[in-house]
């Protein structure tokens, strides 16, 4: 939005103030994440920009914290804890995240398909239940699940964590898939049915390709939720369930070392990749459903 030529000086001034404010806010949003990246390459074990780094001295940068992160403890100069925990954590987080996402996506698609049908008794109530894991504070969810899972011996098991993370991921899939189904032309399924397609084939060949963008972005949301989840892990995870966030949590609480920043850098890059994917998918979905970008 450009300023019209007839704007008064006061309007001009106001317009520039407005732009400055916006820049500052965006800066505020992104700056901390950007600041992490250079420090993760620092040589020093302190979490700050050293004068050498500011002078861009090549000796001030190294990959030592990344080596520690992957469990390579050969560096003689390190004094911080060095273990395989980051690797184990990443593996566990990935494992829990992938299975929870698959479960949440399957269940979420069912829910969204049912909720988008023209006749659905108690639609509002069911929708409210489906979304409630997003609304209830995690601390309450975690406390409730702790007692419930303890009864069924699910505390300190991977099964327990996967189920809990499925619950947290489900609303995201329901929301995104329901949103893609809003503009869905039901004539397509009717046409497919009239041409002899059975309901299952109809779903996979006609409906699924069209709602796929929504499904994938919902799945990505569910995955990142599980991948980033720490409260439930703290409550119902045992010593074996080291996940990445849990490892970060104990790192932050006990001894904060630049290794955390290397992990953080990788996670920031991962999040940018995920974000771009979701954004591209959203556009594809709009194109498929004939919604023109404005």
């Amino acid at each position, binding site marked *: 939005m450009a300023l019209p030529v007839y704007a008064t000086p006061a309007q001009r001034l106001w317009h520039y103030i407005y732009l400055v404010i916006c820049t500052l806010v965006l800066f505020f949003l992104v700056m901390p994440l950007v600041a992490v990246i250079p420090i993760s390459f620092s040589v020093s074990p302190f979490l700050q920009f050293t004068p050498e780094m500011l002078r861009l001295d090549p000796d001030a940068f190294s990959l030592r914290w990344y080596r520690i992160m992957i469990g390579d403890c050969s560096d003689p100069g390190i004094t911080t804890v060095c273990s395989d925990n980051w690797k184990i954590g990443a593996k566990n987080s990935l494992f829990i995240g992938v299975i929870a996402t698959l479960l949440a996506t399957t269940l*979420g698609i069912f829910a969204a398909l049912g909720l988008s049908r023209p006749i*659905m*008794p108690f639609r509002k109530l069911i929708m409210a239940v489906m979304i409630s894991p997003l609304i209830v504070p995690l601390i309450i969810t975690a406390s409730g699940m702790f007692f419930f899972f303890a009864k069924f011996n699910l505390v300190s098991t991977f099964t327990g964590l996967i189920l809990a993370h499925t619950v947290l991921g489900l609303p*995201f899939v329901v*929301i995104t898939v329901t949103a893609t189904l809003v503009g869905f032309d039901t004539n397509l399924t009717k046409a497919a049915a009239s041409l002899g397609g059975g309901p299952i084939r109809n779903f996979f060949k006609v409906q699924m390709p069209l709602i796929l963008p929504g499904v994938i972005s919902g799945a990505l949301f569910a995955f990142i939720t599980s*991948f980033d989840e*720490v409260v439930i892990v703290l409550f119902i995870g045992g010593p074996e369930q080291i996940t990445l966030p849990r490892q970060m949590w104990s790192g932050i609480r006990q001894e904060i070392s630049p290794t955390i920043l290397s992990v953080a850098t990788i996670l920031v890059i991962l*999040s940018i990749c995920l974000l771009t994917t979701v954004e591209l998918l959203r556009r594809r979905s709009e194109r498929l459903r004939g919604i023109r970008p404005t």
Partner: protein
Amino acid sequence: MAASNASTSQPLLTADGTPLKTSLQRSMRRSKLRAAMLVLPPLVFLLTLFIFPIGNLLTRSTDDALINHQLPVTFAILDQWDRQQLPDERLFEAMFLDLTSLNRYLIKDNFASAVNPNDPAWKIQIPKKGPYRDAMIAIAPHWKDAKTWSPIYEIAITAAQATGTEREIKHQQKRAQFKICSLLTPLTNAACSKLYTALNQWDGVSEPDERLFKALYKDLASANKFLLGKSSTRMNYEKPGFKSLIKKSGRKLKKVNEPPYKEAMIKADKRWGDIGFWHALLAMQKPQTSGYYLNAVDRKWDENREVVMQPEERQVYVMLWWRTFLVSLIVTLGCLILAYPVSHLLATLPLKYSNLLMICVLMPFWTSLLVRIVAWMIMLQQQGVVNDTLVMLGLPDEHRLPMMYNFTGTIIVMIQILLPFMILPIYSVMKTIPPSYMRAAQNLGAPPSLAFLKVYMPQTLPGIGAGVILVFIVAIGYYITPELVGGKDGRLIGNMVAYHMQKSLNWGLAAAMGSILLAGILILYWIYDKIVGIDNMKLG
């Protein structure tokens, strides 16, 4: 007219001859059923793993049954006490029995509301070194019968026959021991290992012998210790000092064998002569209590069953609720102020640029919460980026601003974390407002500020409402951020819930605080539904 008359007198038929109405109804029903079938699996999943556990958690906030198992006789006659003076010998005797004897596990009606305090069985003492059988049968004759033993016998032999790996067998046995104890006592996490062994050496039909009774006595005694520990913790919530009183006098009371108990107890610990401890019992007498809720707002029952404030030094929660509310409010307002111009910019810029800026907004949204917290630690700590920059700009080195591990830190970090939740709904509303409205208003002579206030702003209200409620809901239940960056004066109610869940193990209080929090959030959720409709919730 004629045609419609004909159709009312003669029902419309479908091709196969059934009336249209029936056919439509049938198809409706089928369609409904199909939709329900689709929704059923996820719904059942959420109900069992999410809604039910939370409901179960909430019941803990009023549950006070445990203490009624501990003090059945005392509570049965507590109402006869005038509450003005120290109780008489009768109540002291009841308390003595409740604290020392195991009889309550053997007698059938052993819950406070169903107890017959005049039953002589309460006063029978089981000799500590045996023989146990005769005394225990005198207390509760039904234990003489092999049938009374058969439920626990079944558990024991089933577990003993378990097959599998060594670890699995061990696990099964342990579970059986827990199960036996949970049938005999109100405890679910005590292990009756002696009974388990003894039952497995028994044939299940012959008359129970001394060996079984000995095992029963020993296991009940150790379970009793456990229960006493738990219930004295509960009593301590009502009156600090109760736990140490029970613990200290418990050892001495073991040596007391005969009345008068009043003197013996006061001799064992003079605090039994303090009427305050007896008054505290009144609040625990009912199996359902509102005490945890009162405690969560710094109140309690007094001896006249009236709600009074907690003593000054124990008042923390009202302040915490207030702080939680304040932090959420400041964060919400801060987010709104920061989000409004940015959303406007995003909504009015050409798509090319706005997409790029959108990535700036969404990137924090997608980045791990812990990563963002670490990032803020680097920015805000004493030697952090912000302070370093300020020092470079001329701030004296010794006046570095404390921005981390306090109230300020919590606010700054929470605003950054929640800002996307505010920007996105406002942005999506602003996007639908045609720019021509503002131009029209200005064309008609309104100065830009007036046009903005009267024309543009009112149209963005739905977005503001959605964002405000969303941010407030998320902020009010925050736990991780205040825990890591809040320090001492940035702790919120969520941290207190976690503290009582994990550290102090006062689960009733944690549940009560959780329910109050949840109730508040549900109200906001309902308002959100009224304003935006939950169906319209969008992501990204």
